[in-house]
């Protein structure tokens, strides 16, 4: 049992923290937000330059063969700085599908573009009626000779507006909610029949609703078994959830720090408001919530090595519950303790609240994951 970072992991943390301290203060973020697509190509290039976009890929594929802990370190740092760039969509999710399900050809074709920063990905999964159920897929992929023809609508596709490549879930057989008969397909975003309607999200990122109308892709576009893709989807989404837990911990950590700083500097009645016990105890409760969340983020991260897929999934679900609760509490109380200033778009604090709120509602909210843990028979 060991909770310390290895020497290499410590260096990785220093490197990403350093990069973001230099290039990602809140003013810079506002600037990046106004760039085309809503994030900075220059920052993305820097992340590539430092090898961060290649971290989780096998050395044979040109990556560094890093594990879940390294992703946790990066995501926590990205959460602290409220980074807009599509690391989750591209490296964690897009890369995840390639790593866990991709053929040698698919890896060779797509991974180098991710590592060098040339290409970004998006995961087109959510549908109008699917909510958090990954196995609820109405979009279809039908075999026509040597090609797959994809039809359907996908919503709130993170980085969907800018991505070069889409990973699309579509039904190859069976009914809308059958667990089997779901395929995962690589679709170039500029393929004929793909229509994207992009928009900013509440937390300053960008997403798109995407319509697929008779989109034709080759037989080699399917990742893994086109008739049984759900286990792969669940695995990659669990990694995405785990990464978001770490991102949320970064956001909570910074949110609490900023709030404590504010309590020390803001004066009312002639004294710093941090001298009032009501506010002190609220901040102490935020610290408790943060530490519990940090523990569960580590738990989910280390669960990546569990042998049992069921235990792994339950661990991630449990972490998502804790992160959801802690994130809501810390996010809301950070605003409350800042008072009026916390309500302004100009102050950074509210943006942590917004990102934490969106994280809670991505890939299953607190209630959804509590039900998953319950159905799995609990944790003890």
């Amino acid at each position, binding site marked *: 049992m060991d*909770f310390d970072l290895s020497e290499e992991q410590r260096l990785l943390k220093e490197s990403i923290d350093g990069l973001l301290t230099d290039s990602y203060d809140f003013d810079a973020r506002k600037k990046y937000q106004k760039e085309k697509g809503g994030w900075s190509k220059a920052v993305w290039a820097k992340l590539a330059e430092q090898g961060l976009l290649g971290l989780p890929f096998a050395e044979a594929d040109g990556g560094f063969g890093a594990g879940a802990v390294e992703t946790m370190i990066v995501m926590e740092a990205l959460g602290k700085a409220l980074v807009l760039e599509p690391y989750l969509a591209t490296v964690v999710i897009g890369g995840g599908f390639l790593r866990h399900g991709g053929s040698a050809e698919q890896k060779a074709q797509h991974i180098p573009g991710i590592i060098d920063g040339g290409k970004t990905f998006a995961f087109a999964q959510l549908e109008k009626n699917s909510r958090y159920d990954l196995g609820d897929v109405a979009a279809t992929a039908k075999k026509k000779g040597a090609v797959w023809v994809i039809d359907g609508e996908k919503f709130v596709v993170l980085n969907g507006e800018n991505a070069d490549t889409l990973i699309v879930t579509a039904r190859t057989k069976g009914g809308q909610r059958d667990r089997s008969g779901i395929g995962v397909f690589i679709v170039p975003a500029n393929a004929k029949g793909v229509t994207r309607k992009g928009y900013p999200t509440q937390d300053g990122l960008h997403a798109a609703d995407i319509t697929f109308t008779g989109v034709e892709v080759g037989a080699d576009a399917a990742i893994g078994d086109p008739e049984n893709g759900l286990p792969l989807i669940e695995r990659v989404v669990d990694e995405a959830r785990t990464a978001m837990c770490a991102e949320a911990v970064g956001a909570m950590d910074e949110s609490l720090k900023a709030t404590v700083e504010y309590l020390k500097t803001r004066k009312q009645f002639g004294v710093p408001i941090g001298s009032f016990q009501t506010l002190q105890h609220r901040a102490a409760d935020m610290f408790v919530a943060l530490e519990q969340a940090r*523990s569960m983020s580590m738990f989910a991260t280390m669960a990546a090595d569990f042998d049992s897929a069921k235990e792994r999934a339950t661990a991630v679900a449990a972490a998502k519950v804790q992160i959801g609760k802690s994130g809501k509490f810390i996010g809301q109380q950070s605003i409350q303790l800042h008072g009026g200033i916390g309500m302004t778009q100009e102050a950074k604090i509210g943006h942590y609240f917004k990102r934490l709120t969106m994280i809670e509602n991505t890939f299953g909210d607190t209630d959804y994951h509590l039900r998953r843990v319950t159905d799995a028979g609990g944790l003890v």
Partner: protein
Amino acid sequence: MDLAFSKEEIAFREEVRAFFRDNVPPETRRKMVEGRHLSKDEMVAWWRILNKKGWGVSHWPKEYGGTGWTSVQHYIFNEELQMHPAPAPLAFGVSMVGPVIYTFGNEKQKQQYLPRIANVDDWWCQGFSEPGSGSDLASLKTKAERKGDKYIINGQKTWTTLAQHADMIFCLCRTDTTAKKQMGISFIVFSMKSKGVTVRPIETIDGGHEVNEVFFDDVEVPVENLIGEENKGWDYAKFLLGNERTGIARVGVSKERLRRIKDLASKVEQNGKPVIEDQGFREKLAACEIELKALELTQLRVVADEGKHGKGKPNPASSVLKIKGSEIQQTTTELLMEVIGPFAAPYDVHGDDGSNETMDWTAQIAPSYFNNRKVSIYGGSNEIQRNIITKAVLGL
């Protein structure tokens, strides 16, 4: 970063588990499971079994009978003990006064007291809290006046846990009334059989008798019973309070109770099916388990940190353990109340001394719920823990 225990640690856990399975008297275990109080004889008998094995004072330095275990081994031992369940070693002797004596006491005191603590030849109790000094402990008024080679002690202590069984007390007494309140306190130990000591029981809301008032009326104590230096008692008290951190979260206790909740909830029916099949109840249970898992991990982080960097000064994260640990313990007793529902009501006028075995054991569920309100009050109330986080962690 690695969550798994090493091969050696797993083997150790098996050894500990097997020892508890083979050596905890079944009747003692049964009473623990059912939330009953144990008699003094039952507790002492078990502690002597533990001491004979060499595990009675596991965390003491080896020269005084400790084991030399790693932080992780201590963690495993406590967790298994709590989960079995079996009574933890008497904290007042083993975790509190013992370490003060081997750290600050003289050679004679070490020889006189330490082996007797380990074997529970003396049952110790703690004389800290007073009627006017709870969270503000340093305001205590019990006075020890030096008269020749004796201290004359007058005053009153309260919330003295199991003083009715005690042979010895370690007591914070004011020896200098002119100094700043923390500076005039001394750490004095003496026999509860001394002339002028009176113990009066306090009945708690569960109907139990755990705590007492203790009165001192011109109690004569030899000056050689002073531990360390006169007027340095506050330092020793702080050392003592910061010393007992492992197990403060009582993760094993809550785990054991969750097991019991599941057991009972699969027997008690509601709407024609066991309570455990009720979705709402199951979700509450799962929510509690998630909180407990997070706490367990937080505790392991503190343990790992201690293992790496030594115990040194108290880790402020232990305040998190106290707050969350007590809240979860209380939640588990609430869940038990929910399972038992209307059958929580009957009150066993005989108490839980085992004299009335015909009374259904469910009679202990409500008292245990009432009794557990204490866990967020004792050992530094949860509000005091928040003060500690505020100062030591957040710097406010």
